């Protein structure tokens, strides 16, 4: 009988939760069914060059994107880009989260085991780069030095294969720009990276220079999961043949690799005010995504936390144990791991794709919800036991006593902790940039990939977070004051 009542009590939050998830779903399903999801890298010049707003809708989006654009137009298919780190892309491809991938990806025997490649559209290789003023002149000078590579890339595989011979230490990054900036700043001594990419970067002022020749040359190709999306692969190959035949491929490649290659948009005003003015649109968009994630995330987390909290003080002891286990699991898993698991791992289990926004909200709901669950349970438990006894002695059943008497007092005790959790949630949304959510943090990373103004841009981003959190703190203090009267 008690179980029945608990179920009834839990029905409301659960249905709210399901409604919330459904509300977020149309966002991703807006595109029609025939749209292919193509994964690509974050800015990886000259193959991928993100626009200020983080998209590839600009005039010079890079070799890969222009090739894909032309082929899709010619072969008449629609696609939607998923922008993640290279390594996350590869995993997403293997889990079926994306249909295809184009990201300056080299064809290797290892990759062929799980991936079907198109014909090659470019031959690429690896270069070693150091800071302009570095004394390193050949691989032999790398002994004992720290060398950066990008996780999961051909450069990383190559570096690993010669690591023992030259005796350097490896440091892994998820995108080139951070890796290069690290070398320029002197934190690392050198980096291995894609040759064209390095040359393009140097032309645009990364402050590095290339040492030695390009090695480990390998063909680049478009990729699909082995045995899947073969019609897409065929369309790509047909389109590529047409591009080659008509000389369009050469034109695209030359646009980015010849001496007269297009440069990145030059940022005229690199003062803080200039940067803000120049990037206001992109920053606002990122900020809006952060706020949207925070609000929907905390609402979902509140519902989940409430369920856990009620389970944690349920009349039946079985629920206590279950709530404890759930809270233990989700508090114990780092949020980034959880995000990757949900976005990249879950589709394998579910058998269908999970929209990015939904995956982000699910991550926040489970992680922050576990903390809120502990707060809710603690709030209920800190209500004087005499309140329970008085309510029960009047004949009120357990859950009526909880809902009418204990819960209202418990919630009041929880408010400061819940507000604190909301602030933490807002900050935690930045972790979701790892799966490619274009939040404020990810927007910042993108903008820096273009203007190389790391210090100033991160300062701007930090101040924006601070302002939002200050406003939020004021608002919550105001609400708390109001509630006390």
């Amino acid at each position, binding site marked *: 009988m008690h179980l029945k009542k608990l179920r009834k009590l839990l029905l409301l939050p659960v249905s709210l939760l399901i409604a919330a998830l459904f509300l977020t779903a149309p966002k991703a399903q807006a595109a029609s069914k025939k749209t292919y999801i193509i994964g690509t890298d974050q800015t990886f010049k000259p193959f991928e060059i993100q626009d200020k707003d983080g998209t590839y809708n600009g005039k010079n989006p890079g070799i890969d994107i222009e090739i894909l654009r032309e082929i899709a137009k010619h072969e008449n298919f629609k696609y939607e880009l998923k922008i993640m780190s290279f390594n996350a892309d590869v995993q997403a491809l293997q889990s079926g989260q994306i249909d295809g991938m184009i990201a300056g990806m080299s064809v290797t025997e290892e990759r062929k085991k799980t991936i079907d490649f198109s014909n090659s559209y470019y031959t690429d290789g690896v270069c070693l780069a150091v800071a302009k003023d570095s004394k390193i002149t050949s691989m032999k000078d790398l002994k004992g030095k720290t060398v950066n590579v990008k996780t999961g890339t051909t450069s990383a595989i190559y570096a690993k294969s010669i690591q023992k011979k030259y005796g350097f230490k490896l440091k892994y990054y998820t995108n080139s720009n951070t890796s290069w900036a690290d070398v320029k700043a002197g934190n690392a001594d050198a980096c291995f990276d894609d040759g064209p990419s390095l040359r393009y970067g140097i032309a645009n002022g990364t402050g590095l220079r290339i040492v030695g020749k390009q090695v480990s040359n390998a063909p680049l190709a478009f990729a699909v999961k082995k045995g899947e999306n073969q019609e897409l692969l065929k369309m790509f190959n047909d389109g590529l043949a047409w591009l080659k035949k008509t000389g369009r491929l050469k034109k695209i490649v030359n646009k980015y690799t010849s001496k007269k290659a297009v440069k990145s948009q030059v940022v005229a005003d690199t003062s803080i005010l200039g940067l803000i003015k120049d990037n206001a649109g992109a920053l606002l968009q990122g900020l809006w995504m952060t706020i949207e994630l925070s609000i929907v995330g905390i609402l979902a987390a509140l519902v989940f936390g409430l369920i856990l909290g009620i389970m944690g003080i349920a009349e039946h002891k079985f629920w206590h144990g279950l709530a404890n286990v759930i809270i233990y699991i989700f508090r114990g898993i780092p949020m980034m791991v959880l995000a990757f698991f949900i976005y990249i791992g879950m589709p394998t289990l579910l058998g269908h794709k999970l929209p990015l926004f939904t995956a982000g909200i699910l991550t926040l709901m489970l992680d922050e919800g576990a903390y809120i669950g502990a707060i809710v349970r603690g709030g209920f438990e800190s209500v*004087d036991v*005499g309140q329970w006894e008085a309510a029960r002695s*009047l004949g009120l*059943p357990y859950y009526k006593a909880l809902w009418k*008497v204990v819960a209202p*007092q418990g919630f009041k005790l929880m408010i400061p902790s819940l507000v604190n959790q909301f602030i933490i949630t807002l900050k935690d949304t930045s972790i979701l940039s790892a799966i490619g959510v274009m939040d404020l943090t990810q927007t910042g990373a993108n903008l820096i990939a273009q203007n190389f103004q790391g210090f100033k841009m991160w300062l701007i981003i930090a101040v924006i977070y601070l302002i939002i959190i200050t406003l939020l703190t004021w608002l919550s203090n105001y609400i708390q004051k109001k509630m006390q009267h």
Partner: protein
Amino acid sequence: MEEKYKVQVTDLHKSYDGVHEVIKGASLDVAPSEVVCIIGPSGSGKSTFLRCINKLEDFQDGHIYLDGVDLADPKVDINKMREKIGMVFQHFNLFPNMTVLENITLAPVELGKEDKETAIKEAHKYLQMVNMDDKADVKPTTLSGGQQQRVAIARALAMKPDVMLFDEPTSALDPEMVGDVLNVMKKLAQEGMTMIVVTHEMGFAKQVADKVAFFYGGVIKELGTPEEIFDHPQEEETKNFLNKVLNI
């Protein structure tokens, strides 16, 4: 079970964690309209005994009958039984998130005993009885201890219980507040309410109780009229206890 008793407790045993036995076979019969005062040293188990009667405490052995229904029977709906047993606590335990009036109407309305309008009307009646009607719309935290306890009595009465349990209702009060609360309890007794009162107020017990039970070491050591207990105690422990509390 004899029908002439309102409450009948037979051979009650209660222990915590199955080891520490606090009630070691206590029995008590309470006739309708009877007032029984339970006295005894602290730690003797008298409050626990009282809390067993509405099952705020579980017990391992024995029976508690209310109008012939055995609370030890797992098929008995304890919530329904509690509706018939009013309880007043040492620390009042009013609901601070509600007004005085809401404290009183909550249970009758929530349990479908009365509609809201009737419940409010009834609540005012009980508040008048405990002389607190002018405070109907304030929050309990603004009241003195004595006032809170009188509201707590009104709250229990609003469920129209057959029996009222009082667990040291004046122990947490300033001395000048005690009288008001005891007067309300006297009035209740005169109106024929069946009452079981755990108390340290010997004067009240002498004056109002039909029976006084002396609780000692988890059992009722001695039971009798106020005259028997206070003027002619038989047991050594009773004499010692009374000597201590009456000759301060």
